[in-house]
């Protein structure tokens, strides 16, 4: 298969900038590879010479305090930010599920999933994706009639239907109630196991990261401040000693020492 690079020029203040998109034929085993990524908002440096590599099929969770640049990094990977410097290679196709489901209100569920799809069998493919998220009975529903969990599942189906090499999840479960969130976690793991995209999940929830990811990153001072692999088998017991230990270390990294956690 041919390898194609499409550099996307950015109006970067310094250094070489660009987001290189590698099509699926690329030899590299990385779904995303970022070097020296810097993003400034005025005088504030949000991403500071950040390096990151996400292997193909790897599930990475990124946590960080609010304002730490998690979403900035995700938007950069999604190609939504043109003011970057540094270099970045991303395996196409990339799909995003946003914090709020961002369904187009005037399109029915099926129409939302097929939006922008270039597949000649788009209805079939979209119906298949909606089947995977268990929403076949809501194909013709308007988004306004969906519950929060259903809307987020539509958003997931819309991302999945593009068969992404890299799936970016921007706190997609943070607005859901605890039970819905748990069932969404199971769903995401199931979908990931079946389709094996690389996933970057941005979250502020340490437990969510521990339940889902192969690797947890902590973003701090504009860089990857901490990185830990999790070898525990899924489904995971949150009281597994390794996870308890890692939870303490992560909370420490986030500036939230252990005793504060234990009072909860």
């Amino acid at each position, binding site marked *: 298969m041919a390898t194609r690079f499409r550099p996307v020029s950015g109006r970067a203040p310094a250094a070489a900038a660009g987001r290189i998109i590698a099509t699926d034929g690329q030899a590299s085993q990385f779904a995303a590879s970022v070097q020296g990524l810097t993003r400034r908002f005025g005088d504030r440096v949000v991403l500071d010479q950040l390096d990151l590599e996400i292997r193909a099929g790897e599930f990475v969770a990124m946590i960080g305090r609010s304002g730490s640049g998690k979403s900035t990094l995700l938007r950069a990977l999604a190609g939504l930010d043109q003011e970057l410097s540094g270099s970045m290679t991303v395996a196409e196709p990339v799909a995003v599920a946003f914090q709020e489901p961002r369904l187009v*209100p005037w399109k029915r569920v099926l129409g939302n999933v097929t939006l922008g799809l270039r597949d000649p069998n788009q209805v079939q493919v979209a119906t298949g994706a909606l089947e995977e998220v268990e929403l076949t009975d809501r194909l013709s529903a308007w988004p306004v009639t969906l519950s929060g969990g259903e809307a987020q599942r539509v958003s997931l189906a819309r991302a999945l239907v593009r068969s992404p090499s890299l799936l970016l999840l921007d706190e997609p479960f943070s607005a859901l109630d605890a039970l819905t969130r748990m069932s969404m976690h199971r769903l995401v793991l199931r979908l990931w196991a079946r389709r094996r995209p690389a996933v970057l999940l941005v979250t502020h929830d340490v437990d969510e990261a521990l339940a889902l990811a192969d690797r947890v990153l902590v973003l701090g001072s504009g860089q990857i401040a901490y990185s830990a692999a999790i070898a525990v088998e899924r489904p995971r017991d949150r009281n597994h000693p390794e996870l308890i230990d890692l939870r303490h270390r992560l909370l420490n990294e986030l500036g939230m020492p252990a005793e504060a956690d234990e009072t909860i």
Partner: protein
Amino acid sequence: MFTEVLARSGAPDAPPGVIAAGLGSRRSRSRGWLRLISPVLLVGLWQLLSATGVLPPSRLSSPVTIAHTAYTLVVTTSPTYGTLQSSLLVSAERWAIGLSLGITIAVLLAVISGLSRVGEYALDPVVQALRAVPLLGLLPLFIVWFGIGELPKDLIVLLGALFPMYINTFAGIRSVDPKLGELGQVLGLSRWELVRHIVLPGALPSALTGVRLSVISSLLALVVGEQINANAGLGFMITTAQEFLQNNIIMVCLIVYAILGLLADWGLRVVERRALAWRRDFGQ
């Protein structure tokens, strides 16, 4: 009705607003006739006051007289006025031409200035400046320019429709959630797809409000435009009836204008309910 409500509230995922909205629309549909009581009573009172001589016929004809006048104007051809329906046709044609052209031009202008900064800088100041000119004050100028034929009348109706439509459509385009634009970018939509799937449908609620305002303001423009130098149409009937002090004919024409406005508004509500079905559950 009871089982329907129970079935709806039984659905575990249905947000509460759906149930409330369902109840509300059901009630307004089945009890719509309640809204007829007060107008009918008012007409009855009017008839009573006319019959007892409290309202002199030289000031205000009785409802029965007006109805009879309308009937006569429909079934007989008066040498002065012709028939009511032929006048109505003339007026309706002016309105339809002016309104449809005005709305079309307004949408084109709004799309151009709504979608690009260049278009906005080029068009918006001009439209805003023209909007400030009192529409009805233009009529004498139009007569000087275009004579007393159909053109000045169509134009005045067109302008009456243009401005509210332009302003609302432009505002609608600009109010589309930028997050949906971002979504379109992530989904790889082309510029045209973005306009077609995101921008225009997003502007539709506001544009439909623009249509309703345009209908009313163009009707106003029609009434005034027709009363000057016309030789046919409802406005012509009113002017002529005024010369002969036939206020029953004036009343008939005014009622026909009102019916035109009401019919248009009703038609638009139907269109709106269909076109905006996606947000019906917000409780319209």
